[in-house]
């Protein structure tokens, strides 16, 4: 029986834990504390929690100020609303290399019924284009907790962590050790490599099972660390298999797929297909309905692999 858990829940718990160990950690939110789960930190450490109200630009620059004065801020809101503060991230956080951790939740279609205005499908693209910004997309609760622990102690600049609303299957066990800048090889394979992030990782594993029944051996790589990306792992996968499929809960433009394509095109060109949202907005629906309608399924990953065999 697979455990399912939401990465935002793991975030809230991890934040509370590191908050107890590191007094410099402060948390900011923009009126979404219940949903982002920063309320857990807030009720335990009220003097170190700053409710900023519905003012994301104010939140990001305030976090920058806190970081400049020796604090280690974690700022949260929904991914789409936080993105209005992109220029603030660029000009006040990244340019000054300040240790601001932007842990934004409710990314992707799995936001569900709230509809297209709330479904961030471009955030990986705009974050990875920022110099100095580390970009993490945890695949499950275990990885989320480890990334947050990592950020609590690795304070060398800004970071973006993409979290989700929905419960997702756990793909790691207790032995897992997150390593920043390193691809997480979940499954070996020689005919193709599926490089996925976030909710698509468990689907990639399911797709590999289906392919195996037809004698196609597909590797599965969880690329949680989108920036800095593990280019060596991508090149190795290309050289070993000659076929790469990427999968993400994000526009095919600019996200993980594009990042992988950049490495392949320059260093190890091979057959490639990107599974993701095909440059459209989402809409209202249940999380599962939306993933299905917009092609974010294990079946689609299977077809993509078959399409380049």
């Amino acid at each position, binding site marked *: 029986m697979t455990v399912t858990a939401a990465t935002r829940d793991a975030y809230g718990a991890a934040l509370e834990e590191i908050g107890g160990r590191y007094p410099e950690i*402060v948390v900011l939110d923009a009126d979404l504390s219940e949903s982002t789960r920063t309320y857990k930190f807030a009720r335990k450490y009220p*003097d*170190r929690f*700053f409710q*900023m*109200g519905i*003012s994301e*630009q*104010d*939140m*990001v*620059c*305030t*976090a*920058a*100020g*806190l*970081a*400049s*004065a*020796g*604090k280690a*801020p974690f700022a949260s809101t929904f991914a789409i609303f936080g993105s209005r503060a992109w*220029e*603030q991230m660029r*000009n*006040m956080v990244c*340019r*000054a*290399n300040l240790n601001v951790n932007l842990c934004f939740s409710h990314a992707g279609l799995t936001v569900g019924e709230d509809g297209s205005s709330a479904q961030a499908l471009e955030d990986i693209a705009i974050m990875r284009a920022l110099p100095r910004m580390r970009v993490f997309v945890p695949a499950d609760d275990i990885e989320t907790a480890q990334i947050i622990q990592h950020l609590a102690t690795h304070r060398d600049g800004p970071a973006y962590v993409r979290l989700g609303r929905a419960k997702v299957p756990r793909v790691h066990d207790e032995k897992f050790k997150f390593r920043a800048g390193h691809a997480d090889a979940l499954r070996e394979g020689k005919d193709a490599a599926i490089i996925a992030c976030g909710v698509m990782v468990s689907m990639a594993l399911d797709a590999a099972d289906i392919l195996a029944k037809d004698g196609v051996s597909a590797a599965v790589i969880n690329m949680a660390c989108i920036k800095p990306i593990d280019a060596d792992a991508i090149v190795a996968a290309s050289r070993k298999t000659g076929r790469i499929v990427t999968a993400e809960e994000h526009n095919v433009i600019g996200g993980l797929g594009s990042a992988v394509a950049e490495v392949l095109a320059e260093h190890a060109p091979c057959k490639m297909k990107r599974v993701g949202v095909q440059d459209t907005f989402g809409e209202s629906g249940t999380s599962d309905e939306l993933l299905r309608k917009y092609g974010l399924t294990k079946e689609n990953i299977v077809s993509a692999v078959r399409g380049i065999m």
Partner: protein
Amino acid sequence: MERITDITQLKEIARQVRLDILESTFAAGSGHPGGSMSAVELVVSLYYREMKYNPEEPRWPDRDRFILSKGHACPVLYSVLSRVGFFPHEELLRFRKLGSILQGHTDMLKTPGVDASAGSLGMGLSFGNGVAMAGRIDNKDYRVYVMLGDGEVQEGEIWEAAMTAPHYNLDNVCAILDHNELQIDGFNYDVKDIEPIADKWRAFCWNVLEVNGHDFGQIFAALDEARATKGRPTIIVAHTVKGRGVSFMERVAGFHGRCLTKDEMELARKELEFPLM
């Protein structure tokens, strides 16, 4: 750093700072002299009379902070920082040049004494609030001074930050509005009228003081009152003249973002070297 409170001495420093602004922008071939000239007495007051800091230790954790949110006015800040000892005065002539420690807009990684990387308007007050919040948590008594432009208050984020400061009782924040009435495309009232600006800040629950921004006595009194005001932040609305100090620059929008020509520099040097007042 020894404080200077004698107004005659400070007026002389202000005169030299104005020359620095013109010389550095002229050497660079670009820059923002108008909005730098309007802020001279204010910045001189802060660094010579008001703030505690240490040029030997620019990141001294207990220092007062100055956030030049209108970061394009960095020529005035750079001049003052060089004069109080953060870096050699000669650096001013390398302003905006490739590899210079003095960037076109403030850069806290490159310039000793600069507390925030600004340049895109509307961000400095939020940043200053964040610094003040850190001071609160740490029970420190440093103060945070944020200088805003009057065109800048057209940015929405300024008002987000304006709501934050009183909400968190940040009486260690003192904003200063360099109200020179001009922006790039003209006077504020032609572009997007900001009046009644003092009333707006009062409505946002700030303690509001209004001064002649070129009168040291008034500036000192306002800074004293800001320091003494508990429970809410203060904003000093400083009525200033863009391009102040050179007759043909005063109240002219065109000098927002261009340096003087060679001929204009000759005239300007004469005026500043032999001030009428």
